[in-house]
């Protein structure tokens, strides 16, 4: 069973307390967006076998959304952080890169 620490309330929550919300940091495009951008936003997913950034909600706890970096092949959780960000914080990226040197994610530098 997954254990993920909610950054909002600090509780190490069990999977049954949490609701998975899919890929994080998906950019919503505005009214002038191309069909390709909009299709990307709505449907195309990174779906990696490896480190994934995801949205989670502490549904049976504090009720708030947060983001997590988790490996889909080993279920290792690299850290959680606030949902009020457009990209993962530096320390999470450093933790991931220390363990997975060859790792890349979309166009993240």
């Amino acid at each position, binding site marked *: *069973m*997954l254990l993920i620490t909610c950054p909002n309330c600090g509780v190490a929550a069990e*999977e*049954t307390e949490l*609701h*998975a919300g*899919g890929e994080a940091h998906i950019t919503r495009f505005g009214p002038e967006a191309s*069909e*390709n951008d909009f*299709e*990307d936003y*709505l*449907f*195309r*997913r*990174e*779906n*990696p*076998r490896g480190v*994934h950034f*995801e949205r989670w909600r502490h549904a049976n706890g504090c009720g708030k959304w947060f983001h997590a970096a*988790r490996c*889909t*092949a*080993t*279920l290792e959780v690299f850290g959680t952080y606030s949902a009020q960000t457009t990209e993962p914080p530096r320390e999470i990226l450093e933790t991931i890169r220390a363990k997975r040197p060859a790792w890349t994610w979309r166009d993240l530098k």
Partner: protein
Amino acid sequence: MRRYSAFAIAREVLRHHQGWERAWAKPEPRKQYDVIIVGAGGHGLATAYYLGKNHGITNVAVLEKGWLGGGNTGRNTTIIRSNYLQDPSAAIYEKARSLYETLSQDLNMNVMFSPRGVMMLAQTEHEVRGYVRTAHANALQGVQTEFIGPERVKELCPIIRIDGPRYPVLGALWQARGGTARHDAVAWGYARACSDMGMHIIQKCEVTGIRTEGGNVTGVETTRGPIGCSKLGLVAAGHSGVLAQMAGFRLPLESVALQALVSEPIKPCMDVVVMANTVHGYMSQSDKGEMVIGGGTDGFNNYTQRGSFHHIEETVRALVETFPMIARLKMLRQWGGIVDVTGDRSPIISPTPVGGLFVNCGWGTGGFKAIPGGGWATAEMIAKGAPGPLAAEFGLNRFREGRFIDESVAAGVAH
């Protein structure tokens, strides 16, 4: 290929079973093939088989990173049905179901197709309306289903409790010619027939890269060296996204774990397949007597082929409520598979942005029932370079164009 028959069994009994030959060859990969299929599961092998049988293309290799039929083909709960709502789905699933009827004769391998009947219970007023609508749609599509009342449900499956306290059974969508088949035998049968046509089935050969030149596919990198091809079919279910990434595009898929379990074997007690979508579980009895049970998927992306235990608890709870007599059964085995789920719960059989590269994926939680039809449609697409009538509606372009084939009702429970 020596054919299997009653006579062959008699002959081998007299020879102490020394004369059986390998079901499929174990060849070394060649440098170049006309078509490479990635994934030796049901859909991949069926694609190869119909490429040879229907289109005369036999210079084909099927590459498999693990063992043949060891992915979702060997992990599903073997249910076969075609009672879908939308026309394109009914067409391809009914094609598959009708091919299953004669598959044993076609492949000369007993796939143990058992059209014992599938019922999907209606336990809320919404479900009743949904299934009555599906039964009408099926009548127009030429798929034989009917909506039956609770008394008939009890008659067909006496171990169901139809007056449960939470969700009494209000009726069911009944497909009398649905049923089950032996999943391993389906993969083995196709593999044997493909090998007999001279195709190469190469196991323990993982694709690590996809070679392209000027936007067209030229081959694959594998753990057994590079192999060239003029056309490439990716038929890798849960790992389709990983392969698409190698080719430089993304698919509208999420890979999640789906679990199944079986009980200890007991005497025959139900001769139909029952799906209870409201309480979320489904069950049938295997020929060995085990109760074969499945339920819902996990909510998060997962490639581990293991699921979360609380889903088993939910599934078992749902089925004990529906079938009180199973409450004291012991469970024998539990396992998980990685399923690739699309937004509209319909598959993708499509050309891709890379020339000569085709995908068959997105079957989500219900690909086994579609193996012959999916293989038939994918083979036609690869042979002709463009999707035929069965596959036309299942293109990747449907997401951009908003032409969804919404089967969230038909696939209401993972199956």
